[in-house]
């Protein structure tokens, strides 16, 4: 049945093509070609530096004048050929470690980075173990159900063997009654 269905997929192909075209057409403008590279680098960097007077907001995001000045510094330094690391250090020196929006991957802050993947690995491992346990206990229960069904079979067999006897009994009874009547 499914095999027979498979060759007739024209409408689905059309639909799939339509979806694809939709996505593609939506993405045509994504090149952003004429923006200079420093611009993109500055933008990425701005997203990792916090505006010191507006907690939690990056200088990329904040409308505070200080954030604007810091953006200008980032842009200027990049044009002067500074590396991302140098620029970050420049701000850390002035405002402290907390000016960076991601914790450094060293010292105690390493825990910030290590714990989520470890938690994920543990979750997957415990999931796999649980699944195995579920399947094993399920197969144990299978044995039980087999036993149960075995018992059921036994009971049915018993009933089957009993039925003719009772029928015979009834017949015999009937016979006796009949003979009694007569």
């Amino acid at each position, binding site marked *: 049945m499914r095999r027979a269905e498979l060759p007739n997929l024209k409408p689905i192909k059309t639909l799939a093509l339509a979806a694809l075209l939709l996505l*593609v057409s939506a993405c045509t403008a994504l090149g952003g070609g004429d923006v200079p590279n420093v611009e993109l680098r500055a933008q990425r960097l701005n*997203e990792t530096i916090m505006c010191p007077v507006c907690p939690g907001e990056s200088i990329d995001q904040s409308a505070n004048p200080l954030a604007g000045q810091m953006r200008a510094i980032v842009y200027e330094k990049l044009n002067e050929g500074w590396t991302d690391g140098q620029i970050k250090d420049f701000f850390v020196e002035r405002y402290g470690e907390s000016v960076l929006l991601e*914790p450094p991957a060293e010292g105690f802050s390493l825990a910030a980075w290590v714990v989520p993947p470890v938690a994920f690995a543990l979750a997957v491992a415990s999931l796999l173990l649980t699944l195995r346990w579920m399947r094993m206990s399920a197969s144990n229960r299978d044995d039980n159900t087999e036993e149960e069904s075995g018992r059921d079979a036994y009971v049915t067999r018993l009933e089957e063997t009993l039925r003719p006897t009772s029928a015979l009994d009834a017949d015999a009874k009937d016979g006796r009654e009949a003979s009694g009547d007569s």
Partner: protein
Amino acid sequence: MIVEAGQIALALAFAVSLYAAFASILGVVRRSSEMLVSGRFGLYSVPALLLVATGALIYAFVTSDFSVRYVAENSSLSMPRAYTWVAFYAGNAGSMLYLAVIFSIMVVFAIAAIRKNLPYTAPYATGIAALVLAFLLGVMLFLAHPLARLETVPMDGQGINPLLVHFGMFIHPPLQMAGLVSVAIPFAIAIGAMVAGKGGSDEWVDQGRLWGMISWLILTVGLMLGSWWAYTILGWGGYWAWDPVENSALMPWLAMTAFVHSIMVQKRRGMFRMWNMMIIIVAFTMAQLGMFINRGGPVPSVHSFAQSSMGWLFLAFMAVTLIASTALFIWKSNTLRSRGRLESMLSRESAFLAQNVLFLTVAFATLWGTIFPIFSEAASDTVVTVGRPFFDRVNGPMLLVIVMLMGVGPVLPWRRATPRNALRTLRYPLGVAAVAGVVLAVLGVRQPVALIAFMTCAAVVTVILHEWGRGTRARHRRGEPYHLAFVRLLSANRPRYGGYVVHLAIIMLSAGAIASSFYSVKRDFVMAPGDTKSLGEYTFTYKGSSQAAFPDRIEEYAQFEVYKGDRYLGTMEPMRADYPSFRIASTQGAIHSAPIEDFYIVPSEFADGGQAVFRVLINPMVWWMWASGPVMVLGTLLALSPRRRPEPAEVRLPAGAQAAGV
């Protein structure tokens, strides 16, 4: 007078909900149906009492009765009139009152719905819900005092944070708060069923799923409106910043997403009974954590509108409910054994399980990142910030895997799938993804992660459309016209096809998020009136600015003429408002929105002499994110709408009678 009446109503509501909790639980213990009924009707009266209290508070606001402390702190004479109606939930005490009202109304509906269907569960669920309500009301009565009077009456109030004076204020905060508190209802039903020893007989599942989905829907809409508000009004060109309060609203959403999926496995296969209990406990804990972080939590946030020490009470209550529900879970865990069994690692059941683990891990990673600064400060005395780059890097890959799973999970059958069949169903999606990848790469999407993410989106869309196409064709072959066949297909299995609609919406959302986070472009421009600049294909001319003065603020508008290529897009007027009494400013971006990309201008500074600094952004495909909202709501409503059953009378009609009738 009215205010005092409200205060009495509030005290009564607290006493009644405490009574309802004890009567419900004592009623089960003593097997007294009279007590159960009296407890239940007591609870039914709480919304009325709380509406009296709310009415009193709103009355005080609308009449600018500054003798009420809360009114004096959260409104002023210069405030726009309409906002006095909603200012009551802008501050701490009032938002507690709002939470209590909305929760009591939901509780009444939920209890009325489950009372007949779940006779054993209902009393316990009533008791649990009443306890939560009593907690909220107790905090309000003894600590927050929304209706307390001041000794000396000020001439004018202090007003509310101007960022809250916006149309979004009418929808986002109330929905978000309602979403958080609504998680307590599926929690009460699930725990109630478990305590009643019915957690293993799946009678609670339908109601648990229904209320779980209602809660999920409210949380979803709350989050979407929040990011829409941030994008269109707060004027920084983004919609999600991984701010602590955003995170704390996202965590219960993630847990509830896991719950509404895994509950389906219990509904269909009688499995995951323990797992579902654990998830709903986690979800409720995270919802409480959300309220705690919002109500004066320890993490600095752009949402810190209502700071108070009251938050710690929420934390204590969270610890109590977590410990109590875990203890109950351990006590009752022997009643939660599975009916079905997991037959294969490659099955819809295991796909659901993988989805659950991923969602909960994202929730955990989000929690971890949000509270890590506290640990860091306590453990090593270094103040660190955990912000957007961290969450992008940690959660991004997991979210991508979740989207991939969205393509695989639905095509796997229940119980057992053979790898060959699964691959055969997936060959079209995989083919489309490959073609999409090539086309996109040719068009200039070269960042590998973005490319993979878009290919995944294309595959998931193909999977869903392929399924719809196959189903529609199968019905068409039985003689139904295509459009009818499609509609009937969707309404025949509503949880499934409603889920697909939601998945499509999630793909729209993901596509927008991927495109805008990888390919958004922004730049600052210093412009004097008459200047023309360009960014990308857009050319814009700054015509000048105009001011408008209001009692509480000065608004400055900039006028732009904008062209894309040769095409005239019109004038755009971004605005910046200064609130001298609060010493803060708010900006409102001007957005030209189109499915392909948004062109976005925000004024950052107006200097003397007409010069000004503007941020100009091109955000690709953000339009799709807002368009996904209504689709998501429709899909959810389809998924939770009850299926119409054929009228039993018709079925019972003898064939002859039917023929005679026709």
